[in-house]
């Protein structure tokens, strides 16, 4: 099955006054149709930059190098802005973290939804409106036809995020990138939105990239996982491998931080990873995690630490060979 999206050796640098920030270092992954890939990591690990690089929405200070970013066979890197804008919104859509500020306050919901479709396809206003109503219902918003006339400030955060999802779907894209879609919402709404995303993805057989720092969310929705730290991929695998058999010390540390029903005993202390994430500016080599890792050795500071591939989807970046866990 050829990949929906294939990213090969992506690097993103940000030109800051303090120096060149290496936000994304040598990241490769692929997304299949109908499957969800999750990019997991702490804030600032570069995962949002990856999404922006794919969509071509990097800030002016951002510099993107990659061997290939291929979407349904087309190399996105080789496209000019005009061609790329025909892909954005139409064939690949992105949903952002802040629903409260992501909609234009001066225009109605209907206006913004219809615009998403009419920009790319020649349809009549009536047809566009019907599609908007259809999708609003799909995302669980009732009373759709009157909703179209409402303004964003009249709606709650959860509703606005649903509308963002509907807006992303207007043209029927094959890939959805969701960048921390639930982080800014109340906990009770978070679960609903994640379920909605999941069911929509399955119904329309889309590929999804889910960017998050919340492992709980990942465990329910993702098929494949890419763990990121400080701009680099430190481990990849499918959902079962990662959760049941984490290899990289960072991944293991993350697993110890979350309570697991059935395994974590009451009153048991959750783990934590001491130290802070370094800022990847300037000359960098070796494993970025070594100043926080309990297993660190002198070898970890060697240059040219590559990903060790166990299989096509399973890899890790560590000098210490994997230890089989007993569970």
């Amino acid at each position, binding site marked *: 099955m050829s990949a929906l999206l294939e990213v090969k050796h992506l690097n993103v640098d940000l030109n800051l006054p303090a120096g060149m920030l290496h936000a994304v270092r040598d990241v490769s992954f692929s997304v299949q149709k109908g499957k969800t890939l999750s990019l997991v990591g702490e804030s600032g690990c570069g995962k949002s930059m990856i999404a922006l690089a794919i*969509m071509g*929405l990097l800030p002016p200070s951002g510099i993107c190098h990659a061997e290939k970013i291929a979407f349904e066979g087309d190399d996105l890197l080789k496209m000019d802005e*005009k061609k790329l*804008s*025909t*892909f*954005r*919104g*139409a064939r690949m*859509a*992105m949903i*952002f973290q*802040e629903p409260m*500020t*992501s*909609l*234009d*306050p*001066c*225009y109605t919901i209907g206006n913004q939804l219809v*615009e*998403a479709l009419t*920009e*790319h396809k020649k349809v009549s206003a009536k047809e566009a409106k019907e599609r908007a109503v259809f999708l609003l219902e799909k995302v669980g918003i009732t009373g759709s036809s009157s909703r179209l006339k409402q*303004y964003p*400030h*009249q709606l709650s955060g959860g509703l606005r995020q649903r509308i*963002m999802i509907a*807006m992303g779907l207007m043209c029927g894209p094959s890939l959805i990138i969701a960048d921390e879609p639930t982080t800014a919402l109340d906990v009770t709404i978070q679960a609903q939105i994640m379920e909605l995303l999941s069911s929509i993805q399955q119904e329309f057989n889309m590929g999804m990239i889910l960017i998050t720092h919340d492992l709980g969310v990942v465990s329910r929705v993702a098929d494949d996982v890419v763990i990121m730290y400080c701009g680099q991929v430190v481990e990849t695998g499918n959902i079962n491998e990662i959760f049941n058999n984490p290899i990289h010390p960072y991944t293991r540390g993350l697993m110890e931080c979350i309570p697991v029903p059935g395994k974590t005993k009451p009153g048991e202390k959750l783990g934590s990873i001491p130290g802070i994430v370094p800022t990847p500016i300037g000359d960098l080599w070796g494993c970025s995690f070594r100043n926080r890792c309990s297993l660190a050795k002198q070898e970890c500071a060697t240059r040219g630490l590559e990903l060790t591939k166990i299989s096509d989807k399973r890899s890790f970046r560590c000098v210490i060979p994997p230890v089989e866990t007993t569970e």
Partner: protein
Amino acid sequence: MLIYTLKRLGLAVIVMITVSLISFMLLRVSGDPAISLAGEGASNEEIEFVRVQYGFDRPLIIQYYEWAGRALHGDLGNSPYLNQPVAQMIRERMGVTVILGVSALSFAMILSIPLGILAAIRPNTWIDRIALSISVMGQAMPSFWFGLILIIFFGVHLRWLPISGSDSWQHFVMPTIALGYYATPAIMRLVRSGMIEVLASDHIRTARAKGLRWPRILFKHTLRNAIIPVVAVAAVQLGFMLGGSIVIESIFALNGLGNLAWVSISRSDLPVVQAIVLFLSITYIILTFLADLLNAFLDPRIRSS
């Protein structure tokens, strides 16, 4: 929306009353009107006579009440010097001032809005520097001096434009530029900074992610949001221009309200001065009220609050 309009209207009325009260008091209090009316060298009896005749001996608040009452009926008193109804004098001359003010503001907007947009799209490039230079120089130049320089250059050396009077549209070109230039920097900077701020906002990011092309993003989504504070500033600037045209009108010999005010002040023609101050204030208040309404039209969030 209705409640918003009513609230704004109520506020406007209260401000109008306060302003009329202040201007009335200010002018009555800062000099003895009886003395100025009676003229120089008048004897004490003559001054007293004038005082009683015009009612200056009564309590200020009663004088105000009567004056305000008459004003509401359109009677702004008579000019003792020309023996004409003040209201008629104002009516004759307001056309020139209004034309000047509106053209000056239009000039300022036509110059500053496109410049502001261009400077915002290409910050720190040559066009941005030109826009900022124009802005910075415009704020530093005394408008009356600029008017004089224009006269010397375009009126005398090049002989392209007439330098006094108000008979044809050419007569208004230089006054418009001299008056409007001062407002350009404020508007241009606001457009520029507003556009830059909105361009960095989340909803523009959404618009780009939707695949919208730049012209639509700029004009539909960015400008609409950025222009909101500009409306308020434009109204204020128009008010200033109507009030500040006094200098320009005197330089270019335009027979407008500013000139009338100036001449009336010189000969202490108090009723005219009071009436003009009242008229200009009310015009300003009406303009800002209309600007508020326009704001509510542009920004749906204001309508609901």
